[in-house]
């Protein structure tokens, strides 16, 4: 059996997602009034999406296995995969941690730490760089936070550290 190409895998994932959402449309309550039920429009979209995903799957199967010459220039195996996607994964994980720690650190301290750590992880940990990254993080996030807090009067999350009484 020929190996599935990456488009086929995406198409299958889309079809599974369509199945889940179609199933979820049966949980949508219908009122006694109106011609267009709340579940009708999502079902129309999902029917179109399912059809398009099927066409995509057929097209991808017809295209055959992935062309190795057009594959991304990366080392084989898991180590190569991780090395290739390292930076985006770091960004996702750091942003995830930033959001997770926000109730404690708040947006100012959390934001400075997020920008500082992200710059170090993406750019390097040399002592000179550390100093530069720290200055950039404090100035950039501090200025932005001040602008929103004082000029635009937006209440940004303070965090338990900055304000122990913050909810």
């Amino acid at each position: 059996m020929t190996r599935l190409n990456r488009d086929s895998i995406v198409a299958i994932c889309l079809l599974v997602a369509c199945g889940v959402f179609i199933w979820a449309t049966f949980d949508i309550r219908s009122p006694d009034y109106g011609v267009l039920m709340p579940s009708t429009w999502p079902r129309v979209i999902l029917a179109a999406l399912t059809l398009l995903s099927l066409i995509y799957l057929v097209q991808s199967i017809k295209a055959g296995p992935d062309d190795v010459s057009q594959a991304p220039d990366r080392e084989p195996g898991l180590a190569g995969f991780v090395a290739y996607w390292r930076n985006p994964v770091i960004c996702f994980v750091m942003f995830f941690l930033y959001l997770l720690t926000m109730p404690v650190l708040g947006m100012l301290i959390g934001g400075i730490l997020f920008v500082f750590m992200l710059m170090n992880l993406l750019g390097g940990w040399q002592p000179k760089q550390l100093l530069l990254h720290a200055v950039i993080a404090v100035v950039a996030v501090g200025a932005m936070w001040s602008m929103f807090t004082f000029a635009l009067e937006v209440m940004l999350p303070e965090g338990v550290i900055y304000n122990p009484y913050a909810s």
Partner: protein
Amino acid sequence: MFVDYLAEAFLHFEQALAGLWIWKTMLFMAIGVAGGLIAGAIPGFTIAMAVVLTLPFTFSMPPEQGAATMVSVMVGGLSGGLMAGILTGIPGTPSSVATTFDGFPMARAGNPGLALGLGVWSSFFGGIFSAICLMTLAPQLARVGLEFQPWDFFMLVMFALTITASLAGKHLVKGLIAGALGLLVRTVGEDDAAGMARFDFGTDALLSGFDFIAVLIGLFAFSQLLSDVRDPAKARQSLSDQGRVRARIDHLGALREIRKRWLVVLRSASIGVFTGILPGAGGSVANILAYDQAKKASKEPEKFGTGTPEGIIAPESSNNAVEGGALITLIGLGIPGDVTAAVMLGALLIHDVVPSPSFIADEPVLVYSIFTAFFIATFMMIFFQSFMLRVFVLVTRIRMYMLASVILGFCGIGVFALNNVTFDLWSLLWFGIIGFVMRQFGFPLAPMILGVVLGNIAELNLARALAIDESLTPFFTRPWSLFFLVVALFSAAFPLFQRDRGRKVWTLFYLPFACFGAAVPLYMMGGVPRPVIATLVVLYGAWTLWKRARRGWQLDARDAEAVELKEG
């Protein structure tokens, strides 16, 4: 009647100018133009991204001031791309790709000042032309839009999504999938008509749905930044490592050259406006199309690519004219012409202003503020270009990873500020991941963004249409609905036409049959002007068919080499 219309327009223009002509708005506009110029100059940062990131700042401003600031960023961004393209050979935005073809060779040949001058002044004239078209055409389009009924609006949205997807080139199916995904995302949460929960999966957070600005920033800005730092080596590079970035703009020399080639400016700006009006097609299509047309019309096409002035004038006049065109459909019909206009729509929605055909009549001062801001920002752009060139030199020394890290931090603060809800930050993250994965798998994001923006409009109009008449027949029998259906079908076939043009005989029938198909609903509209236009369209189609029949249905090899229109 025309005099009355002019007097009314002048009155609104005066009111808008009085509203904008205060130091605070002028300052925000100046910062917007300067920021846009810098953002546009940085490769990897698109204009839409700059406008998206400006959105949270406009939240606390009055609608006129907010719209003027965003228009300024847009105008600045459209002109900023040329600096990087001409001086380093790397286009700052997809809208200035064609500018590098001749701009960079001219700069390397020792004329960077003239190349920059040509780019700056072409952008200026393109922008002014586009602003005039915006002021004159948007009210006319709005009048046509007042004829639209729910069936027509629904079909217009379907056409907008189809044509945007068709600009994904050979990946039409991926474009359509992206559009459908955008529509689906917008259905999450309570529906507008009955207030019933949809796809909440038992969580309260999903009941109010995804904030559309958080989705936009995630899909567009977040995912773009991740793509920019994907390669560790490139992420640590700065732009100044890659070329000469010092020059002084030769304004007088450029104006002399442009005066000799005013026809190129006019033609390219017209291409830009027309491309902008088409939903989904933006500057990245217009600049290539205008460059290609300038080359075809030139007496010395062989000089293109070596540093000819036309090669800079054409793309720069067209890309600055695009946004005027995109705003025409936004202001006239409430349908954004491209992603940047979609963000503008988002900004207006934040202020509870819903663009529609009655937008000009309901909010004349706001609409004329947008028109006026377009003019003022274009003049500001000329003033700031010379100054921002020095700032650009400084910005090019910054490493990409530093910019990306800081802007990711800004995204977080900006998105939270919209609604003061932490869930929006999670939406930003999830849609950032979705956008990044979609980019990696070759899915265009523009149809998804338009799907998110237009999803509610489509559903609302479908509900209204079915409430009036439960039958689906009016979708095919009402002239405007049929018109949009016909053009949607032909736009869906456009990628196939592009692929087979000059190679297969069926492509010879595409344009004539598109003309015949579009003429039918125009005849159905009645009156005098529209049947006359329909007759002209039919005659053009018949003449094209006759010409091709006389040549014995021979395929033209030049068509096979024609430029592929694809939104970047």
